[in-house]
């Protein structure tokens, strides 16, 4: 198929960017979206233009590096996928595809479609861990029985890949699904409960400091999340913070 691409080009974080049109031809429907971008970049290199910079790494939907806003949706029109798992069979011959970086004040653009998500790092550093020494001198793993239900629920929250699609898609650029997932994972496990109050307080404080917006429960994040992280995690974080503030 032949496509027109409208892509955000921006030289560096200080420059002003703009949308630029490109054409690609002979795209196979079996290609992944990023393979289509590879075709474009190969074309640009061969004609002496600078290729489009975009973040990507594992190309199997788990590293969370890829981050494109495609036709008005984070990771494009398919559900339950990252950009690298999006396939060209979702598009038709002759389509025009708009490709933008994830937009949020807390995610400044570094170049073209590459954004800086270090705000997520700082939120994790504020408390996204259990303070246990890595000595291995902990108790036997089976001495802490955890109900299958709690373990499964914690696992569901823990599958977050930190891609930032929730922020990108949220009309308020809120990071609450991301933070809620991490808070939930630990809140659901006995190991995490010791520091639960401090954790949620510190992580929320850092989240606010980074300039993310507030949650208005539109639910868009949950729909666009490539891992289907549930909105319940935000509710749980709210409860955890209320609990922490009352105690």
């Amino acid at each position, binding site marked *: 198929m032949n496509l027109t691409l*409208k892509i*955000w080009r921006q030289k560096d974080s200080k420059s002003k960017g703009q*949308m630029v049109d490109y054409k690609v031809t002979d795209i196979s429907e079996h290609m992944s979206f990023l393979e289509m971008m590879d075709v474009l970049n190969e074309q640009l290199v061969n004609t002496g233009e600078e290729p489009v910079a975009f973040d990507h790494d594992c190309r199997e939907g788990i590293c969370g590096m890829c981050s494109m*806003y495609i*036709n*008005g*949706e984070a990771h494009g*029109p398919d559900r339950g996928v990252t950009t690298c798992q999006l396939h060209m069979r979702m598009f038709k011959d002759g389509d025009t595809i*708009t490709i*933008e970086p994830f*937009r*949020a*004040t*807390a995610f400044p653009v570094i170049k073209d479609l590459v954004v800086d998500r270090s705000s997520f790092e700082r939120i994790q550093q504020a408390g996204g861990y259990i303070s246990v020494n890595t000595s291995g001198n902990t108790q036997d793993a089976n001495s802490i029985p955890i109900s299958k239900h709690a373990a499964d629920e914690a696992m569901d929250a823990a599958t977050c890949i930190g891609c930032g699609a929730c922020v990108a*898609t949220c*009309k*308020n*650029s*809120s990071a*609450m699904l991301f933070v809620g997932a991490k808070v939930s994972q630990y809140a659901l496990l006995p190991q995490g409960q010791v520091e639960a109050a401090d954790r949620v*307080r510190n992580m*929320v*404080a850092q*989240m*606010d400091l980074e*300039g*993310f*917006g*507030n*949650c*208005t*429960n*539109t*639910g*868009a994040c949950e*729909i*666009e999340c490539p891992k289907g992280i549930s*909105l*319940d995690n*935000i*509710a*749980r*974080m*709210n*409860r955890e*913070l*209320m609990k922490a*503030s*009352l105690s």
Partner: protein
Amino acid sequence: MSGFFKSSIGRKVAMALSAFFLMFFLLQHFAINLLSVFSGDLFNEVSHFMGTNWLIQFVMQPILIFGVVFHFVMGFILEIRNKQARTISYVKNNGSANSTWMSRNMIYSGIAILAFIILHFIDFWFPEINAKYIKGDWTGGHELVDGYRYFHELQVKFENPIRVAAYVLAFVFLALHLLHGFTSAFQSMGASTIRKKRLQTIGRIYSIAIPLGFIFIALFHHLNHH
């Protein structure tokens, strides 16, 4: 605790708490208004009680005003902050792919409701305040009618079809606001039951029935007066 209400989540909770209060008030207001459909006298009695009882006037009314003002002011503050969280907007954004119109436009339905409240104050609340606090008339009477004035005023106000149309439109916006706001408030308060059908069903019934009821009352008086 003071730190809590400064946090983003604390503000959400505050919004939700004020919303609960306003939703309760709305239900109460609706119940009284509905009386006007059945009996003018009963409506007058209750209205007079509400308008002259010191607990309602000096405790509940200020709380209500605070609640309304808080909900609006906080709504605007949050909206401004949320806008600042994305200064460069998308060239193409397909919001309808993942969220409802209601959830994305709370600020607009909210502004519509604010406009309505101003109109509503001009229509009823200011004259009432004027009568009681400026003129000092606490009798609830009126020169053109025997007994209380409340039912009479209601009928007079709903003569004008433009006003009725404006009210109807405002209630449509109220319904839209509630359709998202009801469950959203519960979610903000940490109710993971948002998904449970019951809460959503109650939310839908409330969000549609109450505004529809107000519309019915307005139309009832508009049509019956002639």
